[in-house]
């Protein structure tokens, strides 16, 4: 059963304030991921404090890196259930976990940060892995 939306709202806002576009429905997901070109990060948000409590601050720091995906989307596991399942359908062989982050380039997953790569780690270590993936797959620095 989904948590009270009021309890979850701060967790959503912690991600959307970074510029991530929240996808609530299957149509939302298809509209942005079907035929997507370029790089996109999909953050699968979660209420789980064990891992998501580190994942969201790490995402914030990673997105401040000069090299980053051209688009950032988010779905909320356990809340927007259909949208999350649809997003995962774009992740190919990668198994579901939450929180997790999928980096896609031209529609293909090129890097996946699973939940087990987040649990029990400091945000700084997660940031290091994420920014290394950004540098490998996201090309030239983004100019503001």
């Amino acid at each position, binding site marked *: 059963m989904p948590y009270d939306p009021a309890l979850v709202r*701060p*967790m959503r806002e*912690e991600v959307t304030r970074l510029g991530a576009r929240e996808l609530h429905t299957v149509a939302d997901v298809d509209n942005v991921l079907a035929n997507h070109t370029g790089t996109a990060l999909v953050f699968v948000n979660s*209420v*789980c*404090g*064990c*891992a*998501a*409590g*580190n994942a*969201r*601050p790490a995402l914030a720091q990673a997105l401040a890196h000069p090299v980053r995906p051209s688009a950032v989307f988010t779905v909320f596991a356990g809340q927007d259930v259909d949208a999350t399942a649809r997003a995962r359908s774009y992740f190919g*062989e*990668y*198994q*579901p*976990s939450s929180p*997790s982050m999928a980096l896609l380039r031209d529609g293909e997953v090129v890097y*996946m940060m*699973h*939940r*087990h*790569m987040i*649990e*029990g*780690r400091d945000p700084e270590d997660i940031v290091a892995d994420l920014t290394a993936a950004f540098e490998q797959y996201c090309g030239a620095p983004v100019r503001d």
Partner: protein
Amino acid sequence: MSGHVFHPGHHELHGITVVVTMHDDRTLVGRFDQEDARGIHLLDTGIHDPATSHASREDYLRRTLKFGVKPEHPRLIVPAAQVTAITPLREIAIP
């Protein structure tokens, strides 16, 4: 930490994806929930059984590290006496 923790005060491995090595040579990979008199409670668990799998344990773990845990059992309770080792998945190194 963002402070949004809904379940403080649990076992130190609560919420951690672990590799559980069994006396019967099976390997379980799942999210540790709790331990009580019935045993170790795992969530969303995948199992490698050398008696039935074509893949070696190392290949199973290598694939799990890359693609994630394929959940075969939403909830599983393993008697502690059948367990020989519990290791966080992220600490597993496969050459």
